């Protein structure tokens, strides 16, 4: 039986040679994401800005404009509408009315009555109300969680490896998070609590790749003490390339089925993770490992250690 080999044996890609191109690309991606975030911002869901969200299912496709003007005439504030997966599901977002819960109830009832009178058979699948106070806490908790996760992971890779690895990991993770946020800013996809979970997961998994490659770099640094660092990193990335591709692909297979079949509610969440896998794989290969060169990693980094047999050093990659 012949087995599938996606990546041929002993690839010799010169990743490091491209590192200035990669750095430029990375910088461009990061800066444009920051610019997008600064100018367009994120399409925050009610989780983070507070407000009222009514997800409505219609029997027939609806025109958003007609529905919007209908709701805006109710005097319950400016409605923002968003199609949710298909043209028969619409998320209606409204600001929270001043006053207590009874006022909120009144708005919900008013909107629901107006919608049902124009569109018989409409059903209300989900109602979320989040007060400004709670949404503020959700934002600060979300930021705290992402920052803590990044720091925690960077510190772990510092202890497990060396500070160079901690720094390069942190930079790469920062890049992953910012670019993902930029993507959300660009597409105007709703940014809610679930997306924060997705980002945390990206942080965790993007790290998987980096750890695997870092681990191999460390191993090779001890094994081939005379090898030039660029060559050594190329060797390490190439050696782990089959694994990187295989794992990313199996993640993409799993997440892809979730994206296509998992329903509308978690679509943004899945999209964020898929994107994160791609960005994370890119940044493991190009950002964090190449950065190690700039940070001055060398055979001295892990201290003089008993070398393995000379044969292994000579055998190098011929197998």
């Amino acid at each position, binding site marked *: 039986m012949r087995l599938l080999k996606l990546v041929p044996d002993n690839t010799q890609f010169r990743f490091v040679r491209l590192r200035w191109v990669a750095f430029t690309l990375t910088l461009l991606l990061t800066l444009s994401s920051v610019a997008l975030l600064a100018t367009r911002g994120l399409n925050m869901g009610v989780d983070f800005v507070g407000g009222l969200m009514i997800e409505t299912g219609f029997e027939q496709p609806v025109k958003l404009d007609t529905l919007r003007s209908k709701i805006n005439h109710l005097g319950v504030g400016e409605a923002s509408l968003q199609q949710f997966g298909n043209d028969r599901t619409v998320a209606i977002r409204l600001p929270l009315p001043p006053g207590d819960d009874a006022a909120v109830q009144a708005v919900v009832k008013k909107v629901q009555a107006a919608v049902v009178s124009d569109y018989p058979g409409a059903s209300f699948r989900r109602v979320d109300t989040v007060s400004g106070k709670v949404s503020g806490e959700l934002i600060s908790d979300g930021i705290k969680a992402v920052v803590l996760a990044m720091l925690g992971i960077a510190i772990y890779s510092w202890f497990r490896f060396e500070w160079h690895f901690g720094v390069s990991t942190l930079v790469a993770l920062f890049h992953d998070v910012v670019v993902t946020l930029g993507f959300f800013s660009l597409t105007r996809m709703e940014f809610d609590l679930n997306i924060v979970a997705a980002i945390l997961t990206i942080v965790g998994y993007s790290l998987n790749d980096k750890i*695997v490659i870092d681990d191999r770099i460390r191993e090779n640094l001890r094994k081939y003490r005379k090898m030039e660092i660029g060559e050594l990193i190329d060797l390490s990335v190439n050696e782990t390339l089959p694994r990187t591709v295989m794992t990313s692909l199996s993640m993409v297979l799993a997440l892809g089925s979730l994206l296509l079949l998992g329903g509308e509610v978690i679509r943004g969440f899945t999209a964020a993770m898929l994107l994160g896998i791609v960005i994370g794989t890119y940044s493991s290969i190009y950002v964090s490992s190449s950065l190690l060169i700039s940070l001055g990693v060398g055979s001295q980094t892990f201290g003089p250690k008993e070398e393995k047999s000379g044969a292994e050093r000579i055998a190098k990659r011929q197998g």
Partner: protein
Amino acid sequence: MLDFPRWKIWGIVIAILFGIVFALPNFFPEASVARWPSFVPHSQINLGLDLRGGSHILLEADTTDVAKQRLGVIEESVRSELRQGEGGRIDIGDVSTAGGKLSFMLRDPGQLDKAVERMRSLTRPVGITGQRDWDVNVVDGSRIVLSPTQSGLNSAVDNAMQQAVEVIRRRIDQLGTREPTIIRQGANRIVVQVPGLQNPEALKLLLGKTAKLEFKMVNVSASAQDVAQGRAPVGSEIIPYPDDPRGAGKIAVERRPVVTGDQLIDASVGQDQYGAPAVNFRFDSAGGRRFARATQENTGKPFAIVLDGKVISAPVINEPILGGAGIISGNFSTDSANQLAIMLRSGKLPVALKVVEERTVGPDLGADSIRSGVIASIVATAAVVVFMLVTYGRFGVYATVALAINLILIMAIMSIFGATLTLPGIAGFVLTIGAAVDANVLINERIREEQRKGRSIVHSVETGYKEATRTIWDANVTNLIAAVIMIAFGSGPVKGFAVVLTIGIATSVFTAVTITRAIVAHWLRVKRPTELVI
């Protein structure tokens, strides 16, 4: 590599059996599981509200409300202590409660020490630090100031919240709701989760009201003009009266209630003399006596039934009510009368609660989500399995076995801990499917590498497992860091996702490394293969 200790094999077998036994109930409907013999595990994975439909309501108590109540209570007890406490009467004046502090002047500064002593006896120690709930200070030689301490306030809020949870539980139980979850969150919040409720409105009406019931005499001496302008006579106050038949919308009542709802022992829905819905109530014996005395003294005068500071109705007392039972009539529908009866039976909330977050998911959406989640999981598993098989052949089969055991173990652990599966949790499940094979990929790729170097089969496999295990360990610890942070900071759905992820990380290391290793060792020992296709 070849010698795999017997105890390890047994450990693996036991773990798998245990996983199957505990995961099993999830594959059967709840009703049939209930009929299983008692020695078989019954617990199933809880479905989150987003999957089965229902409401999640976050209530927040107003702590300033608690502070205000405390101030009222301490003022009352200071007055009564100095008027009639042991050690004789001490006259005070210029009482003020401005700024949340109680301060007053002594008429006779010579009584200062005695007064301070008696004030101190009114305060109580709180907590273990020895701090008291009020600080007593003297200003200008004759003014005593009682200021609330933070720990005093904290403990008062804590008490109020404990009571509030009880009251809410009683109210929801009386509504006949199935399996409500009522948990305190933080210092001043309560989470209420009720599954399967299509319309949470009735529930929220029940939760949002304090239900403080008071019977107060109407002050008939206040002129209509005074009432309209909000000028209350001494000892009275002007409060809203939404269903006022005279149309004024406000009414003057005496500040001091004749009786309060605290003394009620029962309330139920009934009818008034015109057949309209009303609420029957009965006082305990002390309340009944007070009510009897008040109605005797005030026959022919109107009294106001006040709920949460608003007048429900203000009937005239036609005759003394001696039996301790009465009826509250007003502009009720059967539903609103029933709600009031429930609230009166369950007691008043010690503090006003506000809804700060609400999420309601209709049961249809929940069912859709489960269906698409299950389909996505199956397709994802199938895709990953096929991918593993075509790439790694025999070792792909082993990875698949490990994946299957992994999924069973995740289900078993979630069932044992009664963990809640949310929609993002399903996503976590699918993600685990994709990620769990990462360990096998790492191992198998390493074995391929070693083989390319011309190593023997056993040596390749052994080195592959040894070298990859270290990497797998590092990779999973970092994932665990992210997952644990999500559990700590995440709320609701995010937490549900992180829980599944954490369990998945732990079980996948066991299945993808330990179990496949045992299988591979067995294969190498029994078959002694001369060729390794990987």
